[in-house]
């Protein structure tokens, strides 16, 4: 429909959002319902991302979601449009959206780290405070990326992936 200049450049997008699963689903208020929704989010993300060659990682804590998406610019933009429309989260704040030389999660259609992951609540709690100043967004974006890289890398070692 429209002409894009470099739709295939590799881009990385990092955002955080507030979880509102309880409002969006009928049984999201229970722990069981929450877990079911999270599994659904991750499995559908993995399925789509595999076909679209998007990789990344998703972090979930009490403070909300943070996600890293990597792939061709156009695909990342399209994936983000789908994510932005998802009613299970709100107040989506993009922390960074930049071209990148390499993927941080080349082997992961969507790695998932939940509340049990060490240090995740701290980082995401800080990230949730991010205001509108671009400086702190950049810091928050790299905080999220570093944390997820560390967590996913640990998991790679422990599972032998």
């Amino acid at each position, binding site marked *: 429909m429209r002409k894009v200049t470099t739709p295939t450049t590799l881009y990385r997008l990092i955002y955080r959002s507030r979880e509102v699963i309880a409002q969006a689903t009928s049984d999201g208020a229970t722990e069981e319902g929450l877990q079911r929704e999270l599994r659904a989010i991750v499995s559908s993300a993995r399925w789509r991302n595999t076909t679209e060659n998007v990789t990344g990682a998703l972090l979930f804590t009490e403070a909300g979601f943070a996600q890293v998406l990597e792939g061709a610019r156009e695909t990342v*933009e399209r994936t983000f*449009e789908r994510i*932005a*429309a998802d009613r299970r989260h709100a107040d989506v704040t993009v922390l960074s*959206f930049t071209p990148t030389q390499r993927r941080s999660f080349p082997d992961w259609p969507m790695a998932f780290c939940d509340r049990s992951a060490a240090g995740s609540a701290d980082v995401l709690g800080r990230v949730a405070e991010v205001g509108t100043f671009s400086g702190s967004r950049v810091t928050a974006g790299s905080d999220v990326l570093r944390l997820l890289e560390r967590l996913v890398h640990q998991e790679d070692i422990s599972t032998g992936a």
Partner: protein
Amino acid sequence: MREPWAMNAPDGLAGGISSARPAKAPVRRRDRSAEGLASRVLAHLPLAVAVIDAQMGLSFWNEQAAVLFGVPPLMAVERPSLADILVRFGALAQPQRDRIVAFAMAHIAAGDRAEPDGCLRLSLSRTWRIAIQVHGLGGGHWMLIVDDGKVTAGGHPAARGSGDAWLDSLTGLSNRRHFNEMLQAALDQLTAESPQAVLLIDLDGFTMVNETLGHAVGDALLCLVAQRLRRETRDHDLLARLGGDEFAILIPNGGDAEILAARAITMLTQPFMVEGQRAAISASVGIVRIQDQGASADDVMHHADLALYQAKADGGRSWRLSDPAIVGEIQARRDLETSLRRALTLGELSLVYQPRGNVASHSLAGFAARPRWHHPTRGPMPASDFMPAAEATACIVAMGEWTLQTACADAAAWPAPMSVGVSIAPRQLQQGDRLVAAVDRALRESGLDPARLELEVPERAVRDTAAEVLPTFHRLRALGVGVVLVDFDVGPLLLNRLRSLPFHGVVFNDHAVFDAAADANHGSMLSELTAAGFDHIGCCFGDVLTSAAEIAAVMRLHAGAGSDAMTAAE
């Protein structure tokens, strides 16, 4: 097939291009009230329209005319003459320009009520033909309609019968024409059991995206907006792009219009990733519930437009339901804004200067600039008659910028160090970046010494938002200009907060001064202010020149405060 001339714009079009209904004359009947709508209709007309006066000066032209002639859209301060404009229309040969001028002249000679006398057809190239008609509009105005042949090459779009006549080519949504027809059809079938609603959606911040990221990103963003809105609507809702960044939804079952409006705003406020750029916009929505049988599509859209205007005026990112009870009030505010914009463009505003005395030395220290409106029908109006109402409209920002520019230019010609005071409206303070840029520009263009400009900030502008506007004050002070708090009502004095603001002066309102004179505590407060380092403590009596008696009252106060700093100006 309808000839384009048969449209008889703007009356015929204002009700939508609905050939099935007899043309009413709603626009002309409430000419001014529908001015905004009419000018938008003109902007979407597939014809170039220009209005000329008896001297052939152009007083109005729509965007199509601007594109065709290569002149800037909308009104200009000067009225370029038709002949000058035609020179810029490169495709025209000299004899063709002369024919157009003669054609217009013949119509002007026939009077401003004359019916069009034929149609002037000119060939600009082998495939490009234009047709010109002149209509007398009355009131010393004639309208030139130029059909540049591009739209009508294959017949009128409505007559082409192809699918895309109903589709917006950018987003693939319904277009304005289709929306209007569907709305009219829905109105014709309206029953008490089937309430309808219209949402009129206008993007907040889209112009900024277009300007900063470019039109390609802007267009791509509009496509994403369409996609997000489509996701929120149901199959039986009609979603259309009316043009520009304006969308509309016709909801056959209008019960949940507010929910949809809130949802649409939420969705459009989420960030957009487009063409490798991050774009942040939001949306405002006007809602009309249609209950009246016999309402016209024109009425409905007009009310939706007023509700939208209200949502925008209240800061955007919100929806407003059209309320028949206050339609008149909003209309009045909107009319005022339209006339003020017009006044600015046509130079109906001027500045009057109130002398500012130095109380201690009984000498003239400078002047305070106050806008005066030479209203075309009501005559000269002082600032107090229109500024309070103007402050409720977005137009105040443009007016404030004009005042800054004009006052600085005037003051630059006064002997130094005579100062000029310019009022700053709360709305200007809320747009800090723009205000700082405007002050900077006014100073640069006039060459006025920044120390001679004194910005007057009313206390109510900082009462609840001091922290948010603080950086703006610091930036203004950094430019070297003075910032004075005016209309200061003593009341429970917030001296500490005053100290935290980078003002160099305080001007009390008259009421406060007289209260202060009667109250010893306030007297000591004044000395505290002096001790706090305010260079400038004064009193202002609105538009009335400070009388000797009043100055004396201030001076008595000054004597009580035991300081020499009490002057009405630095």
